[in-house]
């Protein structure tokens, strides 16, 4: 949820990286934190919470600075990922598992949003198809077209084939979602 203070001309935006466990959400934040450390002057924090389940999430806040008279602050979060997925499953389960995971994850997101009376048609969001670097290791990848058909056919959102590990399209994804979010807030407060 965005926090907008018109009096102090402050916009604070929360952006969540959402997706199945071991999808590379934390790696995205780690790359941003490491690669742009000198410019964003921030620190990434990983939080372990103990509730009725054990969850982790990462948090990376930074300031964009003054834009059109507004101070813009961004807070990046990864949604808590379940730790039950261990490293070996990524290769063992292969494409089918990940395809199901992606679809399931999107459905789960829709359900969560509905409980806040929000939906994917009005919320600003983008898709990142991560782990494209696996191709170089000879691992068969699901074509982008299939992913688009599975996940984006209905929404026509911007999408980015990416490798968070190598930093490919990590910044592009981030820039796009920040632009869309700020624009959406501007429309809301117009």
């Amino acid at each position, binding site marked *: 949820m965005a*926090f907008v203070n018109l009096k102090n001309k402050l916009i604070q935006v929360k952006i969540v990286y959402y997706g199945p466990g071991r999808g590379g959400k934390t790696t995205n934040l780690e*790359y*941003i934190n*490491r*690669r*742009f*450390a*000198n*410019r*964003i002057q921030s*620190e990434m*924090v990983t*939080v*372990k*919470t*103990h*509730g009725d389940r054990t969850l982790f*999430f990462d*948090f990376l806040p930074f300031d*964009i*600075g003054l*834009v*059109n008279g507004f101070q*813009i602050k961004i807070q990046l*979060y990864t949604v808590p990922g379940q730790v039950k997925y261990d490293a070996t499953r990524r290769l063992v389960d292969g494409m089918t598992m990940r395809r199901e995971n992606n679809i399931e994850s999107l459905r789960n997101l829709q359900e969560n949003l509905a409980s806040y009376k929000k939906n994917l048609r009005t919320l600003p969001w983008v898709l990142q198809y991560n782990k494209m670097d696996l191709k170089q290791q000879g691992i068969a990848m699901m074509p982008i077209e299939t992913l688009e058909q599975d996940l984006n056919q209905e929404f026509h959102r911007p999408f980015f084939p990416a490798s968070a590990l190598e*930093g490919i399209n990590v*910044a592009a994804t*981030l*820039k796009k979602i*920040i*632009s869309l979010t*700020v*624009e959406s807030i*501007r429309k809301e407060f117009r």
Partner: protein
Amino acid sequence: MPKSTPSDTLTSELENRLDELFQEDGPPAEALTPRSANHKPLAELKKAVLSIDWEITSEAVESFLAQIRLLKEVYQTDKAAVVLLQILGSLGQYIKSNRSKAHSSTFSLLNSVFARLEEITNHPGMPELTKRKLLQAQITAYQQLREKVSQRRAAGAGRPPAAAAAASAPHSHRSTAAVVTAPMLAQAIAELKDYIHSEMEALRRLVKSGPSQ
């Protein structure tokens, strides 16, 4: 030539700023110096603040309050830090009692007070005048929050008895709420004001005695 709209200006200015911030030049990520791995006394408190911001659980609030108690010992000679920790502790207690019903400004103040605490403790050489200004701003914000909370309580109390009872005391019955009289409410508000006043006085005394390292 067509004039640019405010939307165009915002979008283009934002995109330029983002390009500047996230352009992929310079040394590769691996070559960057990692952040300082020095022990940071506020690290656990930061995690607790973020946890509360994410979801208010008993564990997160208890961990937060435990860290406050610990840090008051660590920073006992730094009065500015102690004052900020007191404010944080007070906010923590308020969140603990009210959970998600806490005033929405509580969470932004919690983050802001923590940010000032981090700033002050990370810059031991900070001039005292700067420290005082930072402190004063947080104390004022804290006072404003207290006023908002008491106004909200008073507004809740001013509603029809049954509605007020439903909002503030889920276990009370209509009959109990009906016996709440105006003088009782006035007395409760006066007591609340006295409490805020005495707490603010204590904070002011601490600030006046000056921050020390």
